[in-house]
């Protein structure tokens, strides 16, 4: 794993791991249901046990997202979301909390904004780095250079179907953490987090990963606890978006707190 500079995200995850548990990563999109509420909701994540915020930028063609997140980001776009609001949101959130903010974005908006300009503006806003669901390291030349220059984290995805060579590449190129895709699929709550995740995390460790978070399908404290039994972090998205859609910031706070219970040691932890 690349260690140029010190990754706050990696440090936070390592501290949680050292304390005997692991990190909770919480996703919410900017601009849903409106800009200010999305900022307040992200801050509420930080205040209720979320260790790393994954802030999504709404995009017209989100192929990795299930219906819950699609609906939310589509509503944000219909509500007038502009890319500039993403930086505003990062600045507003990081002004109110020390919890690191990673931006989750599909690649074309970054490309159109200009990869270097995007990186500089993200640094200026206080962002920690990028999670790029449709950018594999093979196509990431511009981003690798920009993140080296700025020290931003770069989180690449690893999948159960990835070859050992590709897992090694994801580990080598990622900084902050490697995003282990729990199942062959898209975002959305699932009753079972795939056993494939456990195998994938073991393979990533064998490839040298020291910071691995599991995402897709995690929606309960029990699932968080189960995942933290073998991984360094658990990523929750759709469950938080559903809470925000149904019950506003208060519901997000409650859901985050409930999920965070899964990061605490209990008798049922494995």
């Amino acid at each position: 794993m690349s260690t140029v500079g010190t990754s706050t995200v990696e440090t936070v995850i390592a501290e949680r791991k050292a304390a005997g548990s692991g990190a909770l990563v919480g996703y919410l999109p900017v601009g849903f249901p409106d800009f200010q509420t999305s900022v307040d909701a992200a801050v509420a994540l930080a205040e209720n046990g979320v260790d790393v915020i994954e802030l999504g930028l709404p995009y017209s063609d989100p192929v990795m997202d299930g219906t819950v997140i699609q609906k939310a980001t589509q509503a944000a776009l219909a509500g007038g979301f502009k890319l500039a609001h993403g930086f505003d949101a990062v600045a507003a959130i990081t002004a109110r909390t020390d919890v690191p903010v990673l931006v989750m974005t599909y690649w074309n908006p970054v490309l159109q904004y200009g990869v270097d300009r995007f990186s500089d503006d993200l640094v200026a806003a206080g962002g920690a780095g990028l999670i790029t669901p449709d950018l594999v390291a093979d196509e990431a030349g511009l981003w690798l250079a920009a993140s080296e220059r700025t020290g931003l984290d770069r989180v690449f995805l690893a999948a159960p179907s990835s070859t050992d060579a590709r897992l090694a590449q994801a580990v080598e190129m990622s900084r902050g953490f490697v995003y282990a895709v729990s199942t062959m699929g898209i975002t959305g709550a699932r009753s079972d987090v795939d056993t494939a995740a456990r195998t994938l995390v073991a393979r990533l460790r064998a490839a040298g990963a020291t910071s691995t978070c599991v995402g897709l399908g995690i929606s309960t404290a029990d699932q968080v606890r189960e995942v933290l039994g073998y991984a360094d972090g658990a990523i929750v998205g759709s469950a938080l978006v559903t809470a925000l859609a149904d019950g506003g910031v208060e519901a997000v706070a409650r859901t985050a707190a409930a999920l965070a219970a899964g990061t605490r040691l209990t008798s049922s932890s494995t």
Partner: protein
Amino acid sequence: MALRDELGPYFGEYGGRYVPESLIAALDELDSAYQLARTDTAFQSELAQLHATYTGRPSIITEVPRFAQHAGNARVILKREDLNHTGSHKINNVLGQALLAKRLGKRRLIAETGAGQHGVATATAAALFGMECVVYMGEVDTERQALNVARMRLLGATVIPVTTGSRTLKDAINDALRDWVANVDSTHYLLGTVAGPHPFPVMVRDFHKIIGEEARAQVLELTGRLPDAVTACVGGGSNAMGIFHAFLDDPDVALYGYEAAGEGHLTERHAATITRGRPGVLHGARSYMLQDDDGQTIESHSISAGLDYPGVGPEHAWLNDIGRASYLPITDDEAMEALRLLSRTEGIIPAIESAHALAGTMKLGRELGPDATILVNLSGRGDKDMETAGTYFELFDKKASE
């Protein structure tokens, strides 16, 4: 290197693979299978046999002198892909990919469709090979192409109306990609155009290049020389790549792709991706696309559902940039006028998509004059467009439409 030898994954700065990591293994598997198949005589002869006994290949060429009077009296020759089984060029690619899917042991085909032609072709291949078939189609398109929805269902396919985003072709592709990510072990995504991540652009082109190879020989035999220009409509660009490819290294043959300009390429309602777009990443590849300043995809518009797409294949983007092919806009009205003209002068009702190529040919013929020969890819027939044409030309009796 000859232009015809480009094998991807990049065409200049275009192409590549901008997809979730979960799909990389499937794309690698497909690429390997395709690399074997393209030189495997058993595969090639099985496909050739299907084309001879099922598709109806070789498709004929037809010279259209009465139509040509409206094209500067240039010599106009149509490549009749409209006569293929299922009514368009789409079957060429579908049979090739379905055979590959069979080799890969996949029992389930999924596809996106806009006008429904590719969905019908995929449903046809699935029926022929005894495979399960799921077609994603934007809800807007299922309404305006209800007949093709019925055709697909009659062929045994499941048609899923896509209700997200703009509810058109681009969103159907998104949903097909999501399905593929989740079911990649059992499923082949039978992408219908020369777009998407590698190997799709090069593979789909290769399955369609038979169009140009046949036509090049047929025109040589008929006229004793190569045509001065080859024309085709361009949405994603599969029929255009199919007919262009054999001529890429014939420097005296000009290549023209006609994009759908909808209500005009200077209005906001068009699908003229190369004319008005700029490079970006959409649906797994870097190419020209219609997008706003933030890189959000802009919805396209065309009277032709098959051209109503805000992206274009990466090889076209490259051919444009190196100046080998020219891409020009044709409006809805120009295309519909050409559709009516070919129907009345030659007794051939073209698809509205193909009518864009005809409209472009009319302009081009007037520029080149009577000494020129123009080969046009008549990529599909117009049966599916009767509802649209009937409304456009007010052909329905008031009573019957009530």
